[in-house]
């Protein structure tokens, strides 16, 4: 059989693709406003990766230490190594307190202080009064904050009766005769049936893409599908050279050991037992920004002071923290250490090494959540009908390095805001569905995977994925330079060539995971290219992008965002926003902790 240009069609006021914290917050708002929406997720909603977030969500509630949104804004801009857009960061930090109280109201079981208020812990890169004392800004539900938020949002969506399409895979965006986004092709994973969901408002909330690196803290479903869809539709991705390597992944495996561990007093030590962060960040030590700590660990290991037989990790020591604090505030970390390392952190140090954690780049948007793309004259214009939020989007509040606790904030702030943008548009112009959609590109793509392998070929989708992950880890990891990235780019070409000829062997329709992996791999490979091409171009070190051959930040040439287009791997650039509305601009200056 082959696919033809005909699929069943369903119509909606708006579609939310992705049921993580971002999509869920949006869907809640849209349903509450009475719109007919569908929330599409390739896994059952509470299996989305927001569930894994541990440490907490930032808001200047001031429950533990004095705090102001202005300080939070300053820390976020500094943390971003000045690449974050200051208007967007200001907006997020101003919304934070209200949005966190709203989460509490939705039922999130935050940990509490003796006076009954939400417990807030110390996290890296947070200060009082523009860079002075450590602030306690991260609102926590033990070390399961993501789980607590995702489940509460799901529960509130159940209360309002949101329509879910669980275990449906979004394949590609569809355009109408005028080239405007007007629908999406989805596949029901249960029976392999495809259908068109048509709507003038499509919101991408598909999460991160950490699976592009071998060692990562991400779920296996984090394959950047939304990013692939946007590239194939001809729109750019922004700042894809910036990937956060979390300093403390379980060595050799990748699972996250939350920054909360250092927030509660945990110390990093090398093989000599030295608390080495004192060297790299004399003032805030273990609570420096993540890029700084990740580099410090990599340097310790590179210079031979790593632990264990392979000298390839460092230790995270919490044995001095009282037992009851560990049980009450870090129960999940204890569980992970026991399950995956067979150790009890109350007694033995945890073995850690940097691991790919978070994608700072993504689909470029404005504060209203609209996807933006340059027009012929290079002016940024909203893409009609297309929106993006959460980790798949780049608004950009994280710039070159995200602060811990700011992503959970980002997803709910822009989740709500973008729903309001769509709500307004629908009030002005109710949804109409009389458009013809161009299906040729997606049908060609589906048909490509129907080819059967010739006997001689034994390459597989899973093997290509593994090789891609290795290429990215070696070529574009914590430290980068021209020759290794150039080599990675060459290897990507080979991977791309294999992707074009590889065939799947399973042609069944029910839960065909091989076909799903093939669609996902197409997205991962485009993300690999976007990353390496953007990283090669940026000849400076900024935030998480550290180049051995260009060790300094270079604001004269590089205080700008990268935009990557799939066509011929072209790049353009756009300026960083330095004009917050209610606060003076934070001037770029050297970043020390």
């Amino acid at each position, binding site marked *: 059989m082959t696919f033809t240009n005909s699929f069943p069609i369903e119509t909606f006021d708006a579609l939310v693709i992705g049921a993580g914290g971002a999509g869920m917050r949006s869907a809640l708002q849209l349903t509450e406003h009475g719109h007919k929406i569908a929330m599409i997720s390739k*896994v*059952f909603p*509470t*299996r*989305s*990766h927001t*569930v*894994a977030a541990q440490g907490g969500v930032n808001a200047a*509630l001031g429950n533990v230490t004095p705090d102001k949104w202005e300080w939070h804004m300053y820390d976020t801009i500094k943390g971003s190594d000045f690449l974050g857009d200051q208007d967007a960061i200001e907006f997020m930090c101003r919304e934070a307190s209200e949005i*966190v*109280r*709203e989460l*509490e*109201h*939705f*039922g999130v*079981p*935050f*940990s*509490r*202080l*003796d006076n*009954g*208020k*939400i417990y807030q812990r110390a996290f890296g890169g947070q200060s009082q009064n523009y860079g002075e004392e450590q602030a306690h800004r991260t609102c926590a*539900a033990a070390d*399961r904050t993501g*789980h*607590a938020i995702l*489940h*509460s949002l799901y*529960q*509130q969506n*159940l209360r309002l009766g949101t329509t879910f399409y669980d275990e449906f895979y979004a394949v590609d965006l569809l355009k109408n005769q005028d080239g405007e986004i007007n629908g999406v092709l989805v596949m029901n994973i*249960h029976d392999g049936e495809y259908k068109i969901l048509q709507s003038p408002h499509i919101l991408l909330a598909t999460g991160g893409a950490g699976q592009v690196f071998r060692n990562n803290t991400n*779920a*296996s*479903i984090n394959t950047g599908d939304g990013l692939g869809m946007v590239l194939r539709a001809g729109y750019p991705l922004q700042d894809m050279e910036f990937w956060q390597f979390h300093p403390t992944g379980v060595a050799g495996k990748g*699972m996250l050991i939350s920054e909360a561990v250092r927030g509660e007093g945990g110390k990093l030590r090398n093989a000599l037992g030295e608390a080495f962060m004192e060297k790299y960040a004399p003032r805030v030590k273990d609570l420096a920004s993540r890029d700084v700590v990740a580099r410090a660990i990599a340097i310790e290991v590179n210079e031979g002071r790593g632990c264990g037989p392979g000298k390839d990790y460092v230790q995270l020591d919490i044995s001095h923290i009282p037992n009851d604090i560990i049980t009450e505030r870090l129960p999940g970390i204890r*569980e*992970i250490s026991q*399950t*995956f*390392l*067979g150790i009890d952190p109350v007694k033995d140090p945890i073995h850690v090494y940097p691991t790919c954690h978070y994608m700072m780049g993504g689909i470029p948007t404005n504060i209203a959540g609209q996807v933006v793309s340059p027009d012929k004259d290079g002016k940024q214009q909203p893409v009609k009908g297309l929106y993006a939020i959460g980790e798949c989007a780049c608004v950009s509040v994280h710039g070159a390095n995200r602060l811990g606790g700011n992503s959970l904030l980002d997803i709910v702030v822009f989740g709500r805001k973008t729903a309001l943008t769509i709500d307004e548009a629908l009030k002005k112009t109710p949804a109409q569905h009389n458009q013809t959609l161009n299906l040729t590109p997606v049908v060609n793509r589906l048909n490509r995977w129907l080819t059967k392998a010739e006997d001689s070929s034994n390459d*597989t*989708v*899973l*093997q290509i994925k593994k090789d891609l992950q290795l290429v990215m880890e070696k070529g574009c990891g914590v430290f980068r330079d021209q020759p290794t990235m150039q080599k990675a780019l060459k290897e990507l070409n080979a991977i791309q060539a294999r992707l074009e000829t590889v065939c*799947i*062997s*399973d042609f*069944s*329709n*029910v*839960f*065909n*995971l*091989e076909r799903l*992996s093939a669609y996902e791999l197409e997205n991962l490979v485009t993300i690999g290219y976007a990353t390496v091409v953007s990283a090669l171009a940026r000849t400076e070190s900024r935030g998480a992008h550290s180049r051995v051959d260009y060790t300094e930040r270079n604001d004269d040439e590089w205080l700008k965002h990268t935009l990557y287009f799939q066509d011929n791997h072209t790049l353009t650039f756009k300026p960083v926003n330095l004009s917050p509305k209610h606060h003076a601009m934070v001037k770029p200056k050297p970043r020390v902790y």
Partner: protein
Amino acid sequence: MKFIISRYNPETDQEPFDQTFELDDALLSADSMLLDALHLLREQDPSIAYRSSCQEGVCGSDGMNVNGKNRLSCVTSLSELGQTITLRPLPGLPIIKDLIIDMTLFYKQYKAVKPYLETIPFNIEHEHLQSPEERAKLDGSYECIMCGCCSTSCPSFWWNPDQFAGPAALLAAKRFVVDSRDIKHIDRLKELDSPTQTFRCRHIQNCTEACPKGLIPSRAIQELKSIMVKSL
């Protein structure tokens, strides 16, 4: 290492059958998890179907019956399992394919207990106050990851999955009954006070034994019963 996996593809099979796979021990290490082994088996046979996502025991995707016990494959160490490992889908619910079950009824039961906080209107100025002691009452129930290991090991649920809420849903129900912020306390208890709900539980405790998160749904159900006796 030998794996006996229950296979079923509704497009081609009348009923489930067992298929045996061998995995070279050299591919595994002392700390490999069952999910690692499944991923390796999928390289041999890409058609093997099982759910998984987070790979660290927090998303609840990969509940399955392992050597007769309901578990999550991602946090089950191979070293605990012996040389022959038998994998079946979680029992009691329809099979979609291989190790993947249709959890519709399980989710329906969850939804039926109204598992959402109902409270006074939102005040943007401050959060609800809740003392650490009141908050501590939620420990042991909010952590549920809806994997279904408990309900699919409960005989009362097997017999009436369309009527009996089952341990996971009752655990969720209890979480809202004891949340100091909730204002529907009594309504909730009244709805749960029925022979097909809380009182269908015969306290067999399979659920508690099955929970991979160490939660104790059977105790929560007992507590619900005693709260009902006191409050209704």
